[in-house]
């Protein structure tokens, strides 16, 4: 079979299974089994599938996901999150779409420092989404910003993906970590601007309501009681990682634990609340992890069949102007990003891109940073993006996957706009790292 036949068979198979309503995890599993049957010689390859299922999730690197989910669930079910947002409303109730902006900011800081996109979506989704809905935010204004906030995780340093990219490409890790700062912040600002503009132009998206006039003394008091402690937990998680007290895995577990203690101090801790929080966190973690068991195998099969390499080679062999080639290479990454997991994309494309980058004399830091922005999108580009699936898992049943896809689109477009700007004005990327020498 040719690579494009594999591609067609894989994607149409997956598409049909998803359309008839088979849960995503099982659709991946079935396609993987059929693929393995043909590629790895009959049923003997099934042994390997079972192992691939196990090794895709039996790693401590993924532990932050269930931990952040638990932390978010406790914050929501105990009422900590609601109190926090009430206080915030008393201060900045007049800002259009403030909760959406809050999602972006918290997501940027939290995801950024922990580097776990899905964790950030999970924590904000379980703590912030219900509050936004209560305040009658439109679907697009609740889902979109939370998705976008999660995607910032890999863009603001520290970013494991940036390190993988740099070490595979053999260029400076420090420089790429510095280089993604400006585009990362720029993207956060562009997201926030978009939200505020949309909400000002169409107030129905995030209804402003009469916030009761609260005297300053009370505002300050409630800030100390209800806002500062939970915010400190998030700050604590971040500082623990930043100062090297704990690995990201450890910091996430500490964060969940300290949140329990805080709920206890507030007197919210009771059997029913804990049971509800643990149940929703367990269920959400399971639905995310079980998808990972299938999607990892799917990426591997596409690589095994040579599909990923073939697509990349196909685009890079076309005789076109260098700038067109650059855009083509980014399109390949974007296309792969719709279906595959980020690290696999880096592993396959970088060795093929690298000689071209060198031959054309491009600055690899520039190219790498644009690619990072592109990869960042992969978690929220339909049809397959893990953040999209996490969101589907958290959101109430009336939110369809279509709603989620739609909500992601404006943020994807903003992302593409920024990529275009980075291609047109390389100094956006290179300004900061070039000052390092």
């Amino acid at each position: 079979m040719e690579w494009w036949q594999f591609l067609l068979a894989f994607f149409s198979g997956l598409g049909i299974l998803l359309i008839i309503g088979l849960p995503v995890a099982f659709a991946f599993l079935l396609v993987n089994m059929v693929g393995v049957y043909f590629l790895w010689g009959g049923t003997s390859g099934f042994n390997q599938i079972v192992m691939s299922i196990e090794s895709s999730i039996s790693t401590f690197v993924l532990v932050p996901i269930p931990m952040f989910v638990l932390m978010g669930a406790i914050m929501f079910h105990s009422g900590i999150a609601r109190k926090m947002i009430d206080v915030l409303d008393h201060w900045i109730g007049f800002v259009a779409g403030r909760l959406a902006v809050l999602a972006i900011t918290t997501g940027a800081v939290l995801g950024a420092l922990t580097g776990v996109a899905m964790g950030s979506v999970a924590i904000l989704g379980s703590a912030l989404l219900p509050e936004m809905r209560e305040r009658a935010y439109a679907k697009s204004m609740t889902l979109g910003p939370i998705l976008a906030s999660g995607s910032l995780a890999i863009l603001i340093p520290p970013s494991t993906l940036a390190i993988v990219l740099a070490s595979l490409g053999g260029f400076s890790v420090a420089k790429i970590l510095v280089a993604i700062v400006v585009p990362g912040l720029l993207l956060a600002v562009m997201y926030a601007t978009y939200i505020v503009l949309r909400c000002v132009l169409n107030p129905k998206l995030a209804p402003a309501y009469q916030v009761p006039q609260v005297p300053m003394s009370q505002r300050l008091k409630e800030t100390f009681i209800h806002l500062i402690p939970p915010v400190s937990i998030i700050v604590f998680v971040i500082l623990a990682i930043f100062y090297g007290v704990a690995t990201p895995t450890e910091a996430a577990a500490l964060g969940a634990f300290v949140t329990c203690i805080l709920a206890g101090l507030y007197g919210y801790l009771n059997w029913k609340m804990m049971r509800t929080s643990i149940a929703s966190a367990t269920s959400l973690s399971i639905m995310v992890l079980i998808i990972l068991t299938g999607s990892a195998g799917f990426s591997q099969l596409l690589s095994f069949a040579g599909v990923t390499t073939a697509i990349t080679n196909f685009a890079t062999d076309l005789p076109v102007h260098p700038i067109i080639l650059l855009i083509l290479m980014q399109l390949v990454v974007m296309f792969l990003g719709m279906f595959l997991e980020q690290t696999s994309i880096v592993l396959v494309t970088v060795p093929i891109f690298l000689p071209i980058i060198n031959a054309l004399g491009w600055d690899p830091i520039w190219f790498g940073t644009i690619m990072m922005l592109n990869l960042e999108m992969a978690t929220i580009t339909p049809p397959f993006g893990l953040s999209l699936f996490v969101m589907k898992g958290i959101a109430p049943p009336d939110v369809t996957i279509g709603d989620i896809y739609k909500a992601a689109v404006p943020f994807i477009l903003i992302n593409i706009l920024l990529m275009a700007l980075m291609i047109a004005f390389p100094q956006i990327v290179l300004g900061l790292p070039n000052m390092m020498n």
Partner: protein
Amino acid sequence: MQLLEKFFTWIVNFFAVLAGLLLVAIMLATVFKVGLRGVAGRGIIGIDQLSGTAMVYMTFLGGVWVLRHNAHVTVDLVLSGARTAVRRNLIVLNSVVGAIICFVVSYYGFVAVQTSLARGIMVVQELEIPRAIGLFPIPVGALLLGIEFVRRALAAHRGAFDDEQEPKLEA
């Protein structure tokens, strides 16, 4: 039949509670490790590796409970817009497909566990533990998932399928 049904429900809930406890255990063990490092100046090796294995147990033992509450992520582009009759037939169809996959995975999962034990395969990371221990929940969980898919198919066929439930721990 009803007794069997009751027994299965009991199993589903039992494993759900176990999954929840594993989640809490991962948190506590990790906190304990960091605490010990702070106090005794030395953590314990193996917690990270065991957390990874615990995630496999949590996912596969709790997976059936998530399915029962219809909480697995689905691309509901067509399903959400379909008429009741079409919807019901689609649920029967996808449940049958789901059941087949799960039974196949379960069978080959047990084979994989057996092969792994026979070959004496170990996972060598922080600790050295038999690979079979990590693989074991996969066939068990897949078997339960398969049975649940069959129940779903039957319920949808009878027209008694309710797909708007919230996952709750019922023990």
